[in-house]
C-alpha cells in the first residue's frame, strides 16, 4: 500500500501504460507545456496529470496541440482506428462542445458502422465538476449526456485507485471510453496498491452496506454521500452507498439488487437535473426493481440551471452532505 492522490495515481498509470506499450501516445493542450517557448520546464497539463511523460517518452509520443479540439480529438480517433492507443486530454469536459461531432458521430459510431472491423482503443481524459468558481463553462458534469450516446463508455472515478484502474481498463477496451476526472478530487489522497491494478468498466462498488436506503452516486458526490451515511448511522439509519463508477455501462444488477434489499432509492449527482445520470438510475430501478420499491425513488441534483460562479451560489447549487441527510430522511418518511 502506498498513499497517492488521484492526480498522482493517474500520472503513474500513464507512466506505466506508456512504458509497457510503444503504441500508447498522449495528446492534448499544454500536456507537455511550454512548447516553442524555449523553456525546458514541463507544465504537464493544466492539472499536472501528464507531468514527466514528455521527459521520459519524448514529444513524439507526448504531443502538445494547438487549441483545436476537433482536429486533435479526431486525430486521436483516427490514430486509434489505425494502430495506436491514444489517450487524449480535453482540458475540461465543457470544451467537448467544440469537438462534439468527433465524439458523438465519429468515435461513438465507428465500431458499429464498420461492423466491428474497427475497434477503438481510445481514451478521452477530461475534467468535470463544480465547486471551485470556475464558472458555467469550466464546471459542467457531462457524464449523463455522454452516456446517452450509444457506442461510448463513460466512467467517473471517485478516488485514486479507481482513477488509475479505470484508465487502464479504458485503454484496453474496444470501445472509446471517456474518463471524467473531478477537478475537486485531483488532490485527494488515499491508500492504494502501488501496482495500480485495472478496475473493470461496468462494475459499481458498494462502499457502505446498509438496510434502509440505497444511495447511488458517482465522482465527488461519493464523498458527500459517505459522510452523510456515517452521520445517519449515528441516528440508527443505515444507508447502502454505491459508487456507480461506470455510467455506461451501468451496473444495473448491483443497484437493483441493493434496492431489492432496501426498497428505497436515492440518487445523488451533480450532473443534469433532467435527463442526467440521476434519471438514468431512477428509470432503470423503476423498470427493474419496481416490486421492491417501498417509496418513490428520489434524486438530489443541482437545479436545472447552468453552474453559477459566486461561491455562495455554487455551494448552494451543489448537493451537500446535509441535503443528502435530509433526502434520506425524507425518503424514509415518504
Amino acid at each position, binding site marked *: 500500500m502506498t498513499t497517492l492522490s488521484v492526480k498522482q495515481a493517474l500520472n503513474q498509470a500513464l507512466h506505466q501504460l506508456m512504458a509497457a506499450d510503444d*503504441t500508447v*501516445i498522449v495528446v492534448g493542450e499544454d500536456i507537455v507545456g511550454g512548447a516553442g517557448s524555449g523553456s525546458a520546464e514541463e507544465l504537464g497539463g493544466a492539472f499536472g496529470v501528464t507531468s514527466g511523460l514528455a521527459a521520459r517518452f519524448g514529444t*513524439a*509520443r507526448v*504531443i502538445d*496541440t*494547438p487549441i*483545436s479540439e*476537433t*482536429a*486533435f*480529438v*479526431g*486525430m*486521436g*480517433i*483516427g*490514430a*486509434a*482506428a*489505425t*494502430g*495506436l492507443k*491514444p489517450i487524449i486530454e480535453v482540458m475540461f469536459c465543457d470544451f467537448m462542445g467544440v469537438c462534439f*461531432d*468527433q465524439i458523438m*458521430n*465519429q468515435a461513438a*459510431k*465507428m*465500431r*458499429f*458502422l*464498420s*461492423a*466491428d*472491423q*474497427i475497434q477503438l482503443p481510445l481514451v478521452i481524459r477530461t475534467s468535470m465538476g463544480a465547486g471551485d468558481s470556475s464558472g458555467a463553462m469550466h464546471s459542467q458534469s457531462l457524464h449523463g449526456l455522454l*452516456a446517452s450516446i*450509444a*457506442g461510448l463508455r463513460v466512467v467517473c472515478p471517485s478516488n485514486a485507485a479507481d482513477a488509475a484502474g479505470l484508465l487502464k481498463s479504458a485503454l484496453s477496451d474496444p*470501445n472509446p471510453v471517456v474518463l471524467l476526472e473531478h477537478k475537486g478530487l485531483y488532490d485527494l489522497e488515499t491508500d492504494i496498491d502501488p501496482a495500480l491494478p485495472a478496475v473493470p468498466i461496468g462494475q459499481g462498488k458498494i462502499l457502505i452496506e446498509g438496510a434502509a436506503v440505497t444511495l447511488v452516486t458517482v465522482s465527488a458526490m461519493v464523498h458527500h454521500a459517505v459522510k452523510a451515511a456515517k452521520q445517519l448511522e449515528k441516528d440508527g439509519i443505515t444507508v447502502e452507498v454505491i459508487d456507480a463508477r461506470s455510467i*455506461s*455501462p*451501468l451496473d*444495473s444488477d448491483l443497484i437493483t439488487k441493493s434496492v431489492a434489499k432496501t426498497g428505497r432509492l436515492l440518487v445523488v449527482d451533480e450532473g443534469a437535473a433532467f435527463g442526467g445520470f440521476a434519471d438514468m438510475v431512477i428509470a*432503470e430501478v423503476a423498470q427493474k426493481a419496481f416490486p421492491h420499491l417501498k417509496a418513490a425513488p428520489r434524486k438530489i441534483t443541482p437545479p436545472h440551471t447552468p453552474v453559477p460562479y459566486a461561491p455562495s451560489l455554487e455551494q448552494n447549487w451543489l448537493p451537500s452532505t446535509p441535503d443528502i441527510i435530509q433526502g434520506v430522511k425524507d425518503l424514509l418518511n415518504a
Partner: protein
Amino acid sequence: MHGKLLAIYNDALRIRAFEKAIGVMADAGHVPGLVHLCLGAEVLQATVCNALDSKTDHVNGSHRSHGIALASGASPFKVAAEILGREDGLSSGLGGTQHLFAPEQGMASNGIVGAQVPLAAGAALTAKTLGTHGIAVCFFGDAAANQGAVLETMNLAAVLSLPLLFILENNGYGLSTSSSYASAGVNLTERAKAFGLESISLPSNTITDQIEQIHIAINTVRTESRPLFLEAPIPRLTGHYHGDAGNFAGDTDTVPDPLLLLREFLDAQNIDTASVKEQSSTEMDEVAGRALRSQAPSPQILDTWRSILGATE
C-alpha cells in the same frame, strides 16, 4: 508510364461503370436512401489510390466515396451490397453509402462534411509514430473547406508535420451552393498555403500533367513526411445526389470530363481502350446483379450489437 495510365484508366472506368450501375439500381428503387455518385472524380480517385500501398497507407473520404473504396481495392460487390443495405456489404448493411469501411484496404468514408479530415490526420500520426513510411490521404469537397474540422486540421498537420495529403475535390458546388459564393478569398489553394502547407492546384486540362503532379505530391508527402495540399478541379457530372433536380450541377465547359481526356490521350497513343471499357461495364453489371441477390441482413445482428454496446442490459 503508359502502363500506369492504362491502369488508372481502367480503375477510373470501373468506378464510372460502378456508379452508373448504382444509378440504374437507384432508379429501379433498390437503393434505400440517397446516394452521392462520384461521376467526374474517377480519374482523380483512381490516380491517388493506385499510388498508395494499402499495407501502410490510409484514405479517408467524404460522403462521395464509392470511387475511393473501389480504387483502394475494396470489393465492388461488397461496396455495392453495402450501398444496397445487404448482408454481404462491407459492414453488413450497418453503414451504407456514406459510411464505407474497408480497413484492410486502408479506406473509410464519412457522413459529416469535413469530419474525415481530422481522422485522416490520425492515420498519418499512426504512420509517423510507427515509422511505417505510410501516408494518409483525405479527400474533401470545396464546401467542406469551410468547416472548422478541415481548417483546424490544416494547421495541426503543419504543426506536427504529419504525412498527410489533403485533396480538395473542387467541383464548384456544395449541395446547391456555388463555391464562388460560399468560399471567400482568392482561392482555396491560397488559403491552404496560409496554414503553412505546400499547396498545389492541379492544372485543369492536361490530364497527364495532373496525374504526374499527383504522383509527385504523394511522393513528397511520403519521402519528406510532411503534409501537402492539392486542389483538384473536377466536374460535377450529376447533381448533388443521384436523381436530384440537378439544376445545380457544375459546368463541364470549364472543367472537362477527366475520363474523356484520359481516353483521348490513350487513343492518341494508339492504346486500345475499347476492350477495357467493355470489361468494366460487364464486370459492374455482374457485380450489381450479384449485390441485388444478396440477402437483407438479419435483424439478429442488432441483438449482437445491443449486447456489445448496451448500457444497462
